[in-house]
């Protein structure tokens, strides 16, 4: 446990007394999420200059639409992974809400009723996850792999292999459209609003800080008065609700409600979150880093596709990037730890 603590602390605690502020800034700059931020900006700049058609306003719109589902689901996923848990059922929740949306639409309900209803359905999926994990104390990895299959299965029960497509144009058009026909997609407002809310909750409230405490040491957090189980429970509910909302947006974007919508998306989300510097062991990571991770993955894929790089090569690139993102921070921590120990030893022998 102490090992996790050591790794997870943003700042090397034992260095602090010597030259506190300078080291804090230095480690801030060399932390993985700042590296990823810089890398993202770099990729965007290089791609704008070297890849034809990358920097156009239309491509910007396409990119925002491509990253919409990943970025929204990544918001609660970041919190969940920070607490040391995981939710792999999000893409299946998306599929189930998409199916339900099609089915309810066929039943003649109005779209204005269906949309909030779908968010509630997503939240219920989250309640089930949350209950199994916090109520019965089952491991989240196993539970959400189970509900990954379960929710996807239910989605096929609801809609089968068919698709529902005749959603109203003013809704489908809104999701794919831009503000006033310009370059800024309508859905960007949604991304910004939700990212701000999640960012403030995670980084500027006691609740948000308690997530890090839980992730670093759940037992210690419990004894410090943090209601660990309840916090986790609500995170799963929120995660489900957001997945439900994304199910609605996905359905409207492709004007097609299908049971197989979004399959495999959970891996893209987890990949982006880890790339953004969140530790899979919990207790460490920031939302800006995750946002940068999502943008980096999407921009890289978009640019490579514009350069006619084949799909397989694309998978290799994103796969390697992910492995590196897990590997590099660990290596730097190890190197730093080594250096620190050697200095201590030298000091002791003197």
């Amino acid at each position, binding site marked *: 446990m102490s090992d996790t603590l050591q790794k997870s602390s943003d700042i090397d605690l034992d260095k602090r007394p010597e030259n506190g502020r300078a080291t804090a800034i230095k480690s801030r700059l060399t932390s993985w999420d700042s590296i990823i931020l810089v890398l993202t900006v770099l990729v965007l700049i290089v791609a704008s200059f070297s890849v034809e*058609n990358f920097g156009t306003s*239309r*491509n910007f719109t*396409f990119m925002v639409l491509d990253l919409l589902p990943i970025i929204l689901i990544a918001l*609660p996923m970041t919190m969940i992974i920070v607490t040391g848990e995981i939710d792999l059922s999000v893409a299946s929740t998306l599929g189930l809400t998409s199916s339900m949306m099609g089915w309810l*639409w*066929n039943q003649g309900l*109005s*779209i*204005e009723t269906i*949309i*909030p209803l779908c*968010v509630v359905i997503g*939240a219920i999926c989250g309640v089930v996850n949350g209950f199994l994990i916090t109520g019965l104390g089952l491991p989240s990895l196993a539970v959400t792999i189970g509900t990954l299959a379960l929710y996807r299965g239910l989605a096929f029960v609801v809609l089968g292999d068919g*698709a529902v*497509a*005749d959603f*109203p*144009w*003013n*809704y*489908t058009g*809104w999701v*794919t459209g831009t503000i006033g026909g310009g370059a800024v997609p*309508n859905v960007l407002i*949604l991304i910004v*609003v*939700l990212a701000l*809310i999640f960012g403030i*909750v995670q980084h500027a*409230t*006691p*609740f948000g800080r308690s997530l890090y405490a839980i992730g670093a040491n759940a037992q210690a957090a419990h004894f410090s008065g943090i*209601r660990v189980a*309840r916090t986790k429970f*609500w*995170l799963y*509910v*929120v995660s489900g*609700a*957001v997945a*439900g*909302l994304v199910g*609605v947006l996905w359905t409207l*974007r*492709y*004007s*097609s409600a*299908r049971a*197989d*919508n979004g399959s*495999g998306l959970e891996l893209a989300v987890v990949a982006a979150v880890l790339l953004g510097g969140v530790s899979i062991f919990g207790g460490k990571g920031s939302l800006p880093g995750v946002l940068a991770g999502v943008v980096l993955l999407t921009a890289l*894929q*978009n640019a490579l*596709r*514009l350069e*006619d790089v084949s*799909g*397989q090569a694309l*998978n290799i690139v994103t796969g390697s990037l992910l492995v590196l993102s897990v590997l590099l921070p660990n290596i730097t921590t190890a190197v730093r730890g080594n250096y620190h120990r050697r200095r201590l030893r030298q000091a002791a022998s003197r």
Partner: protein
Amino acid sequence: MLRSPRTLLSVTSAALLVAGLAACGGTTKDSNTNSGSGTQASAAADPNAAVKEGLKIAFLPKQLNNPYSDVETGGGKVAVDELKGEYKLVGPNDASASSQVSYINTLIQQQQDVIVVAANDPNAVCPSLNQARAAKIKVITFDSDASKDCRDAFINQATTEGIGQSLAKMALEQAGSDGGEIAVLSATPNATNQNSWIEVMKTELKKPEYAKLKLVKVAYGNDDDQKSFQEAQGLLQSYPNLKVIVAPTTVGIAAGARYISSSSYKGKVAVTGLGLPNQMREYVKDGTVTKFALWNPADIGYLAAFAGAAMASGQITGAEGEKFKAGKLGEYTIGKDGEIVLGPPTEFTKDNIDQFNF
């Protein structure tokens, strides 16, 4: 504990925000009149316009590295070379409904002239295809159509009638002038395509020229090799006088031919239907099968490229009755709803089978 419900509250309120954003109260399936944006203001066709050179024609199959679609797009490449255009092949690794959309968006960015696409989902690709058309890109679908208000033309490999008639015709040829008993070895009992072909075939068999043919049974091999093999065996045990087995499925015809070629019925019972040349080659060479049919996938891609080029050059707009020339395949006329039918299926015999590799 006071704080966690706040998170939930914010998410729910954000969700309600979406619901409220386009607030125009109570749009239901019934009240919904979907106008769509798919209608492209099309200029009049000029049948005499020359086909442009250097057209950028991109193929987007359901997924890459599928042997069947490789042959289709291969035919497209031949056509684009003949047209002196720029050929491009892109596609996702999985045939999921939405994975094609990013590729369509990329093709729009690259300012292609023609996109030839086999839609994984008739509707999911629609918004993107319409954006492409708004950017003056011609959209031709092949293999599986997109919704007809978001493409300019669809290359239909074969009509149900065409296949059914062809099956009946081949059965008669193989049974010989005396006619006799025939049986069908189909896929599953509820396979849509096979059932509609068999229906057409049955109607066809009622015509006087087919009077000597008697359809004794429709067996189902469930598109499973072993089950099809056993069903073929069963057919001959129940009907020893059987003259022809007609299998309108590539699995069935291969399994049927394998059984006959290894049995004493070889040379007495004919096998025909729809099959892949590579699977059927050995049975054609050893004389078990004299003739079978399938549309030529290479021709689908070939025709699609020519249709796209003709459209991008302004020769045709996709309206019914317009005509265009498709290289070695000859002249085509656009049918109802922008459909272009490839024509009767290609028949394979021992004389031509070695020209086909798929």
